[in-house]
């Protein structure tokens, strides 16, 4: 789509949706949200960018191949589960640390890194499908 309005708005919309997807991802720990839905929102952001500027622009923007991103997410999730081996608790048990950053206590957990892994798996695999479909459109 080559309308001027859309091409002008698309980068802002993409940036906004990307930020929102990260917000949803982090919110998902205690409230509705999470890696899966966050990943889907991020894919929609990339899809909007792709519709406005073409598939090549998206591929350049995300730098890595979508499937490599999915692989990274899968590895991150699997390693999050395996960390409990070091702690002597069964697989996938949530492990927490509570570091103080700038005077604020920030709880971090393997549950969260698992969810971030899910985010990347969804982002990578669905983007890969979306880009392939849009590429066929260009021909």
């Amino acid at each position, binding site marked *: 789509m080559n309308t001027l309005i859309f091409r002008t708005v698309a980068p802002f919309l993409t940036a906004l949706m990307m930020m929102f997807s990260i917000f949803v991802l982090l919110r998902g720990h205690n409230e509705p949200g999470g890696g899966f839905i966050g990943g889907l929102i991020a894919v929609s952001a990339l899809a909007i960018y792709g519709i406005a500027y073409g598939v090549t622009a998206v591929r350049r923007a995300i730098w890595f191949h979508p499937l*490599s991103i999915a692989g990274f997410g899968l590895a991150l999730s699997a390693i999050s589960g395996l960390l409990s081996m070091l702690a002597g608790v069964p697989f*996938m048990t949530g492990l927490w640390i509570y570091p103080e950053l700038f005077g604020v206590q920030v709880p971090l957990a393997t549950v969260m890194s698992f969810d971030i892994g899910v985010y990347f798996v969804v982002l990578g695999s669905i983007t890969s499908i979306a880009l392939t479909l849009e590429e066929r459109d260009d021909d």
Partner: protein
Amino acid sequence: MAAPTPVDLSAALVLTAPLPGDWLLILPPVTMILFGAVLMMLRNRIQWHGGIGVAGLALLVLETGLLLARVAAGGPLTMTMGRWLPPFGIAFTADVLGALMAFVASVAALAAGIFALVDIDSGARRYGFFPFLMLLMAGVTGAFLTGDIFNLYVWFEVLLISSFGLLVLGSEREQIDGGLKYAILNLVGTTLFLITVGYLYGVFGTLNMADIALKVRTIENAPLMTLSALFLMAFAMKAAAFPVNFWLPASYHTPRITVSAIFGGLLTKVGVYALLRVVVMLFPLQREELSTVIAVVAILTMVIAALGMLAQDDLRRMAGFAVILGIGNVLAGIATGTTAGISGAVLYALHSMLTMTALYLIIGRAALLSGGEWRLSGLGGLYAAAPGFAFLSLILFLAVSGLPPASGLWPKVSLVKAALDVGAWWLAGAILVSGFLSTIALARVFLLAYWRPAPERVPGKSTLGRRDQWRVNLPVAVLVLVSLGFGLLPEQPMSLTQSAASSLLEPSAYIRSVFPQKVTP
């Protein structure tokens, strides 16, 4: 969020730390997922894929082998995910059956992985052969080791999705055609499985298999017959039993031969395993009721498959029917329901994993020798071209038809004996007749493809380099030798399958491993 305050967790969480050896239970699928993920990240370095993939499969063989040794010595093992007490946490439980299937499956996959170094060219590697193979093995081993019926469904999905990818590797027209049939019919089977799991949850309120096995003894007015019939239908579709087997001959000849080898060796056996685990272990009384149905299905599967083997000209299609023939034999063992019959069925499934993978690889090797010829009518002169390979093929053909010296004899003997013991002479007769027909079919292959002089246009010598020669011959030789060892020294495998069968029919040790507090007599 504040730091946690001390609460009594013993009502909800597993508080004892797992032993280091317990990790063997979860490691096979997790290792495969990790290797698959790393290979996906290295998608631009396809020259590394082969080495990393084969190393991953070798590691898998090691892990499942250690797991089998541990389970055979110390009884079933359980680990619940996330520390939640079962039945709330998802349990992974391995008994001898699961560990044995996982181990033999990994051996077959390793052999196919080495063969793939030659068979799968860089084009197909770019489509992701090795990552898909790793994820497929994650699904296969996960299905064998899980102790939760919904989790079993999830692993089925994992292996199904990866198998779609492997099936259409290269996206040729014929592959898409075969892939579509495979995909739709398997999705129907999986959906049926999922619906039945939902129904089961509605009836029992639990998905943990040990918990179901406990509750099924006391529950009243439950539609258990419907449940077990639905499960039988769903898993028979997965295992390619007659009348729902038509997807297999329609699709298994289309992909690369290594992919066919992995599919023929492993995928239908996952269906068989699920049948053993769910129908035999969880619904023993209903299986008894259904035994006539299962026996009729087994006989039809065997006879149709044996006739199919005789009728085919394309060797890959013939091997597809050989896979179905094996499924018929396993079903015959399940139909008898005795310890000897189930033990024979498990033994046959293991034998079938090894020999079906080897059969496809031998067909692939023959095609490499003769310049890509798959048709029996076009092959010839293989004995003159490669006598050692012809000798290995002969041993394997004897094994597939159930003759000594390799692994085919003992499972067939146990199955026939078990069928006669319950008075089902017609079942025993069907096993023997179908075995005889498959002997004719394979003897015909040996006669025409090996002894007949080579046709003029076929180059007698293969064009492979020395290193590639090793890579295609080694996996075939290893599989045939394992099968031969199986046949010559049957005591060890048979005692293992015996204990696998008795733990299926009397799962108290399995239940105790999940619920140590509810010790059942």
